[in-house]
């Protein structure tokens, strides 16, 4: 999937993955896609809850060998 910006939070623990992702998303235009890469299993549920609550769209989510990748479309 083509992303307009990639946020690498590998190795970071809660709350940093979402803090970084939010700052990046704030700079995007509506309709653009953000890719977030994380190794923090604990933030996965938080990430999904955050996207839902902020009315953005989680378009794709994959987990591979403990690396979580989220694609979020800004509303």
């Amino acid at each position, binding site marked *: 999937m083509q992303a307009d910006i990639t946020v690498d939070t590998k190795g970071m623990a*809660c*709350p*940093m993955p*979402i*803090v970084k992702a*939010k700052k990046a998303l704030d700079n995007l235009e509506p309709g653009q896609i953000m890719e977030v890469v994380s190794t923090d299993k*604990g933030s996965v549920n938080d990430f999904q809850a*955050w996207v839902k609550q902020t009315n953005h769209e989680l378009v794709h989510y994959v987990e591979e060998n403990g690396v979580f990748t989220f694609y979020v479309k800004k509303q």
Partner: protein
Amino acid sequence: MNATTGLTKMTSHELARIVFHHKELFILDVRNETEFSDWKIEGKGIEIINIPYFDLIDGVDSALDKIPENKPLLVVCAKEGSSVFVAEQIVEAGRTNVSYLEGGMKAWSEHLEPVKVGDLKDGGSLYQFVRIGKGCLSYMVLSNGEAAVVDTLRMTDVFEQFAREKNVKIAHTIDTHLHADHISGGRQLAAKEGATYWLPPKDATEVTFSYESLEDGKEIEVGKSKINIQPVYSPGHTIGSTSLIVDDQYLLTGDILFITSIGRPDLAGKAEDWVGDLRTTLYTRFKELSNDLIVLPAHFGKVTELGEGGKVAARLGDLYQDNPGLNITDEAEFRRTVTENLPPQPNAYQEIRQTNMGKINPSEEEQREMEIGPNRCAVHDQ
């Protein structure tokens, strides 16, 4: 206190004392809504609200309106990081008396607080270990340099350390039944301490290890003066469930009888088969025992069950008056109560049973995840 931020760390032990002694505390839980609604810190003096940390990234003004200024504030999250992130902002906004929970809900879930239940006739004593975050209870009987641990929880180091402090050797570990809501530490603790591990044989038909049979007629002795632990077969939660009479004073009921509820018969998939056993245990077998026995269960369902100093205990005769599960005269209604509309089953209960049988050997992190959430072993835990 951290000099640069004015933020204080609170340990699970300190929080447990606040809950036990009904002290006032305002808690801001910054986990996501799903985790918060599944389980949270409870207590008589506790007021708690939930605002996920991801709503507070740009500032905490929206939270400040909801936090009273005249109460101590504790910020909690799953592990710790997000609570520090939020609490620091609250301190920067000028609030005082702010702390965060060390290790977060993960540490709270695993914290065990020892509470003395009483003295035994020969100078020994009985302690209850309250796993307050999950509602689980273990026991240690101490007498003349020896100890027996009953329904040992997974955090075996707590029992080892306590035994060292009290200068006793752990000689026995006893499980009243094959647990389905938490991973037993009984076998591991016995192996480490050179103790004997006891388990009811009817719950042990599939286990992969050797054990001593916990059955009626056997007596377990602790210490030179022989504090007597007498097994009482009391099936219904599981087919093997066995209660223990300690020192003719205490009745350790495992998951058969709680303070405000009774055990559920369905966690091994045999609710229909075991209802009759549950009924006989509660309405016949226990009725033949002395009303003055003090019932000590392996769980509590609500934090309101914590009595003086955090102790969970009640006289058997009083439970026959007050416990709704002991006051269903109609057998058909009893059958319905214990088989229909039961609360959800505990998280990962099948895997937990397999682990306790020795069939699977999950890592410590996997075991921790399996135990997430409330215990839900009683009929009335909603």
